[in-house]
């Protein structure tokens, strides 16, 4: 799964927004905030599948705390985009 495919979905972008706002969330918390703040009504299983896509692209990592699995933002793969198309250091047309 590449980073472009992973980003090509509004729900997945909103998940990254919410992890940027508060890192280290359970699936339950992500579902609750997507529903209450963004009106996302996708099932918990659907959100879990979106998280799997983000994890496969290296944008989200999971870690166990006790018996609970938390999701963390790992935005490093996004650097590939600005390396490929630098946003600074070129003359304006």
């Amino acid at each position, binding site marked *: 799964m590449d980073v472009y495919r992973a980003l090509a979905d509004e729900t997945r972008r909103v998940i990254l927004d919410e992890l940027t706002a508060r890192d280290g969330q359970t699936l339950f918390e992500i579902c609750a905030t997507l529903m209450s703040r963004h009106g996302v009504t996708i099932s918990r299983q659907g959100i879990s599948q979106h998280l799997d896509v983000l994890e496969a692209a290296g944008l989200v990592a999971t870690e166990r705390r006790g018996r*609970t699995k938390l999701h963390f933002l790992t935005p490093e793969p996004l650097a590939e985009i600005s390396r490929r198309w630098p946003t600074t250091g070129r003359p304006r047309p």
Partner: protein
Amino acid sequence: MKISLTSVYVDDQRSALQFYTDVLGFVPRHDIPVGEHSWLTVASPADPDGPELLLEPAEHPAVGPYRAALAEDGIPLAQFEVDDVEAEYARLSERGVVFTQPPTDAGPVVMAVLDDTCGNLIQLVSAKPVTD
């Protein structure tokens, strides 16, 4: 029909009773020996004759996998209403309670999720003050 009793499975009834009373602040209602366990219930001090929470032994083989799967995803097994989730979060954190989810703004309510140390995640919820 009304809800007068609901239950959570607990790993150990005595430590559960201690956590639900000493830490969370419920009051004991029934403690009736039944075989090696007890019919053990607590109630809210705000409504001592109201609904009871049964602290039920978690020994059925289905309970382990059921609770493990829910805990992994951070899904609470019971929800309790409080006046102020932020205040309870501060009070309980001070007492060493672990929260898997800090107070979270969820539209009309604020919610948080704690570990009851007996195998369950518990959600606290309070209504947000109405603002114009």
